[in-house]
């Protein structure tokens, strides 16, 4: 028997509520569930606690004022080191932050997935991560070493959003690039998880793409599957496509100026996902023509 969990991005967002703790998969500007984030931007859902290896997902949600609190070790666009919207939100004091070390974050997600209250880690001792997050605690080893370690708290999530290369309608998700990031952990740490993918395929066809070790996300941890071609744009989704560097640069430039950001929002984020993809295609064509004209004129 097959349970068909396929749904639209709007249906996913319809299951989210304001005030939720939301985990977002991917890493920096890599394989982010951007189509789901864009659907979130179109909704009334707000006041979120976002848990993310932060990239433009955090930037867009922060710009829209939807993040009450962020749990992260960094926010970056990779090829553009600093995320402008995140920077602005922090420098304007508009974002509450739980700043963790990357390993504390990993083991916090793992603790949540394993239904443990914390995991002991060495990372964090002596650093200001402990000073700026006074709720963080240490734990003392009951064994002979008696080491006092950081108790990285479980990062339990109300919901997780991740984007993968392929999935079947039952919720088995497959990555085909070089790095799984932490998407399986995000799904296992969440009460409900939603997988968007480049293409929904028959279960029988999953292994035609690559070996069984690429089957990252297992269906008991998935509540909804959304087919969103180019749905990680403008972040990378190897091997289906790389990062759209020109578009990311345009995003980062627009994000630094309120007037330009209004124009960017108007052009790319005021319609639905089809409108977004069409606007990006038109922009890419214009940019190519402009580059050609410039070269021809030089």
């Amino acid at each position, binding site marked *: 028997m097959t349970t068909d969990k396929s749904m639209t991005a709007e249906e996913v967002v319809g299951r989210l509520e304001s005030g939720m703790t939301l985990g977002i998969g991917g890493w920096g500007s890599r394989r982010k569930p951007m189509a789901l984030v864009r659907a979130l931007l179109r909704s009334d859902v707000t006041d979120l606690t976002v848990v993310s290896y932060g990239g433009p997902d955090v930037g867009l949600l922060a710009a829209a004022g939807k993040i009450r609190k962020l749990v992260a*070790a960094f926010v970056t666009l990779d090829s553009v080191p600093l995320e402008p919207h995140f920077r602005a939100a922090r420098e304007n004091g508009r974002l509450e932050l739980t700043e963790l070390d990357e390993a504390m974050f990993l083991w916090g997600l793992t603790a949540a997935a394993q239904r443990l209250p914390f995991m002991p880690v060495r990372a964090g001792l002596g650093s200001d991560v402990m000073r700026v997050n006074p709720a963080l605690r240490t734990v003392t080893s009951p064994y002979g070493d008696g080491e006092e370690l950081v108790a990285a708290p479980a990062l339990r999530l109300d919901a997780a959003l991740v984007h993968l290369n392929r999935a079947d309608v039952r919720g088995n998700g497959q990555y085909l690039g070089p790095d799984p990031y932490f998407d399986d952990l995000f799904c296992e740490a969440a009460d409900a998880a939603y997988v968007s993918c480049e293409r929904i395929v028959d279960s029988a066809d999953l292994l035609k793409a690559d070996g069984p070790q690429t089957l990252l996300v297992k269906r008991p941890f998935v509540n909804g599957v959304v087919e969103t071609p180019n749905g990680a744009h403008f972040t990378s989704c190897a091997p289906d496509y790389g990062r759209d560097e020109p578009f990311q640069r345009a995003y980062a430039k627009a994000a630094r100026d309120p007037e330009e950001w209004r124009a960017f929002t108007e052009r790319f984020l005021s319609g639905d996902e089809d409108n977004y993809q069409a606007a990006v295609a038109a922009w890419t064509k214009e940019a190519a023509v402009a580059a050609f004209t410039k070269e021809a004129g030089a």
Partner: protein
Amino acid sequence: MSDGVTTAATRAEYCVVACAEVWRDAGEVLASPMGTVPAIGARLARLTFSPELLLTDGEALLLGDVPASGSGAVVEGWLPYRQHLALAATGRRHIMMGASQIDRHGNQNISCIGDWSRPSRQLLGVRGAPVNTLNHPTSYWVPRHSRRVFVERVDMVSGVGYDRAAAAGPAATRYHRIPEVVSDLGVFDFATPDRTMRLRSVHPGVTVGQVTEATGFALTVPDEVPCTREPTPDELRLIREVLDPEGLREREVPA
């Protein structure tokens, strides 16, 4: 021998060699260089005196040979981010990180400038600096040595220095080590009784006065400060012809 090899080493090339030296005798560990000059340095070390080093492509692959910056390579292993973080805790790694600020005890900041609760300038966040510094050797690279970087007190301790590790107890000091800091002016270490920063060498053309002037805290300066060693002709050839024919190093450290 080509013409390039006969010309004197540039400042950037002294920096490359000084960074490479960080990984001398490191053994069979992952070299994780952040920045262009350290990346060239790590590859130079692997091609010369530290052939056992592991190198990545900057993403999820371990390289089985040593290509020029950005070109393809033989792959000898897989190291996605999750394994990277787990590897840090095994200790089999020596990273060279950047530093927006660093103090005399080796505390480093890449998180933000100003008051953390509302920073005047938000930077990357602490990233993996806490896990790195507590688990394996962590060196630093500063391409523009100035009082803005070498400060009396960092605004947010991301990478843990010797004083903070000592205060946090045995679990923090157990694997904590900051072998070296390399800047565009010289090489520094913490080989002093109180584990504060010491000038180990100046790059040729740099005076000790220039270094102390550009440093915002009292640096330990030995009576005799040697010059950073000369690159060998073979090292210069590898840097110029094999590892960085595009001269990216000169952009990070202008002559």
